[in-house]
């Protein structure tokens, strides 16, 4: 998993150096999909990806890429066992044009659901935000403070 994301990261940076302009989110998403698709029939990567980016012209966008390289632009997405709960919470509460506070609120609701409903719930969560000022770590939601677990 780490291998693949680093590979993509470095290639995106390379494009930026070669061509002088940074890759748009859509282009990065399609590039990632292409890499996954090419590897699919030889040595598939088992990575599911939610790719979020902010472009000056088109604003924020979210792309869902699953491990068999299905690409789709979505407004809300989730992966894994927790996705069953999160997607339903988001279907209920999401509307377009939400503010950051409302979005964090929704994310917290999803985290609460996962914590209460999932037997194998992970104890700690990190929330990251991507906007015009770039990507940054926003907050941690920890219930187990000694995070000596290898991530």
């Amino acid at each position, binding site marked *: 998993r780490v291998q693949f994301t680093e590979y993509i990261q470095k290639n995106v940076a390379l494009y930026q150096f070669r061509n002088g302009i940074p890759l748009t989110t859509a282009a990065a998403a399609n590039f990632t999909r292409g890499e996954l698709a090419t590897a699919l029939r030889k040595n598939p990567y088992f990575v599911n990806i939610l790719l979020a980016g902010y472009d000056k012209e088109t604003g924020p966008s979210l792309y*869902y890429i*699953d491990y068999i390289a*299905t*690409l789709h632009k979505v407004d809300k*997405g989730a992966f894994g066992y927790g996705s069953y709960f999160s997607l339903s919470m988001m279907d209920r509460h999401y509307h377009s044009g939400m503010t950051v506070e409302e979005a964090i609120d929704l994310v917290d609701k999803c985290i609460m659901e996962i914590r209460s409903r999932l037997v194998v719930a992970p104890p700690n969560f990190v929330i990251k935000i991507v906007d015009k000022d770039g990507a940054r770590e926003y907050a941690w939601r920890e219930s187990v403070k000694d995070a000596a677990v290898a991530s």
Partner: protein
Amino acid sequence: MQIFEYNGSALVAMVGKNCFAIASDRRLGVQLQTIATDFQRISKIHDRLFLGLSGLATDAQTLYQRLVFRHKLYQLREERDMKPETFASLVSAILYEKRFGPYVCQPVIAGLGDEDKPFICTMDSIGAKELAKDFVVAGTASESLYGACESMFKENMEPEELFETVSQALLASVDRDCLSGWGGHVYVV
């Protein structure tokens, strides 16, 4: 886990009087879970040729990109658009290239040939063409689509009536299939 039923899809194309209609459902799922309800399965190759791809979404996307590439090359070399029959043969050849590791897709091709004569065809995942004069279907809901189209189809329908017929056939069939649905996209040319 059936590979053809991984993402779920329903596609139908019908012939009318100097026109055709091609319709698909909008669900993108991962087995039982719905991921999105706005997935586009039908794409325009040129103004008078549409291609719908059912089956595994990743192969549909890869195949679509390859076909658009081939068609653009053709346009540059021949300075004209591809005829639907030619395009169907191209798709069939590309699918058969992967005979022993196939693209898991069933394409539906619909276009207007010379003198506005409508052309529709479908093929299986290794390129066996099935030409039809009235309608073709593909996808997880194909059995119910066969029934619905067979009963609703009439010869020489005008575009408005064709649109109604195709929409009703599609909606009725996807209602009985849990892997496809969430509305439909219909293109009438």
